[in-house]
């Protein structure tokens, strides 16, 4: 095999080997290789020594009252008001919540909406909402005349409907006691 120091995966192989996590075939290859390669042997020895030294740091003993304190805290929380439990869950999530992700999404969405409003809104609103002063200025134009004619025609049509409607009601309600006043 190639020297560990020259291998792209050398660090991983070395770490796994010294941790006993390398697969048996790779471990056997390394064991054989370090018998003939002084540099790789030095690397492995150095890594092993680090691991052995780290073993000197013995684990701490857990206090005997650890569980009782924990259960007391749980009980205290369970008996507290519901809003406090809800607030604790919100502000102290079990795993860190990336608040910046939805914030960035919302900011981008807001920017897009703002851009669309700024660039498109004036084109649509100008012809739809003419101001009083513009209507006054354009009163003498042919277009204004056409608008006036249209309004007169509509009013006339409504008047005609008022005249015709009572006449139409007579045959539709022959048994009705309320006769149309105009008849």
């Amino acid at each position, binding site marked *: 095999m190639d020297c560990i120091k020259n291998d792209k995966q050398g*660090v*991983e192989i070395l*770490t796994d080997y*010294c*941790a*006993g*996590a390398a*697969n*048996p075939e790779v*471990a*056997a290859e390394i*064991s054989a290789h370090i018998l003939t390669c002084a540099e790789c042997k030095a690397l492995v020895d*150095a*890594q*092993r*020594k*680090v*691991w*052995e*030294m*780290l*073993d*000197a*740091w*013995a*684990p*701490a*003993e*857990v*206090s005997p009252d*650890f*569980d009782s*304190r*924990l259960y007391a*805290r*749980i009980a205290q*929380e369970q008996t507290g008001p519901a809003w406090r*439990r809800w607030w*604790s*869950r919100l502000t*102290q*999530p*079990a*795993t*860190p919540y990336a608040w910046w992700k939805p914030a960035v999404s919302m900011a981008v969405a807001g920017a897009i909406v703002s851009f669309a409003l700024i660039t498109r809104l004036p084109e649509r609103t100008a012809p739809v909402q003419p101001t009083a002063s513009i209507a006054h200025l354009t009163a003498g134009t042919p277009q204004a005349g056409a608008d006036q004619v249209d309004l007169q025609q509509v009013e006339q049509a409504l008047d005609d409907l008022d005249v015709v409607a009572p006449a139409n009601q007579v045959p539709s309600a022959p048994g009705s006691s309320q006769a149309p006043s105009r008849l």
Partner: protein
Amino acid sequence: MSPLQPSPGVQPSAESGVNQDMEAVAALERDAQLMVRVREGDEVSFALLLERHRSPVVNFLHRMVQNRAVSEELAQEVFLRVYRSRETYEPTAKFTTWLFRIATHLALNWIRDGQKEKRNESLSEELIEGAERQVADRQPNVEQSMLQEVKVQEIRRAIEALPEKQRAAVLMHKYQSLDYSHISKALGCTESAVKSLLFRAYETLRSRLAHLA
């Protein structure tokens, strides 16, 4: 020597490796099952989870923050958050990964808060603890005890001097035997980033602890 470290010239057989893997899978599934039962209101399952993971979590936090009182306080917070999240727990990720993600998050927050005075207090406290434990375990003479004490202090300082994420990665890799995948999920980074963190951390430790070898 670490229990994970093979004896020179003796490599684990493929069969024993498979058995270990199967045992590990079974243990992980057991954790997830216990947590699902906790979600359903089974308090005994929570007690079992606490029994199984109390020491690893406290030890990890102890090595991260280097203060016994703080590590226990943070460990309590870890299990409190686990209990609090029981209703929303989904066994999508491995329980241990989730547990150490919570623990790492709390430890890093505590370290970033910069509570230097507590850390300094812990150094003298640990000296006493280490000496007492050593005397009780192996009955060494005074000189050996002092040498061991100095060695442990050097190791603690070397680990403490590592950047936070390197420290967390080394502690999970060395003492909790978590693989790259678990560590990457606990730290919220990629596996290649974990390998890089571990490489730099072990390089630093090799150079800092060379005089003790």
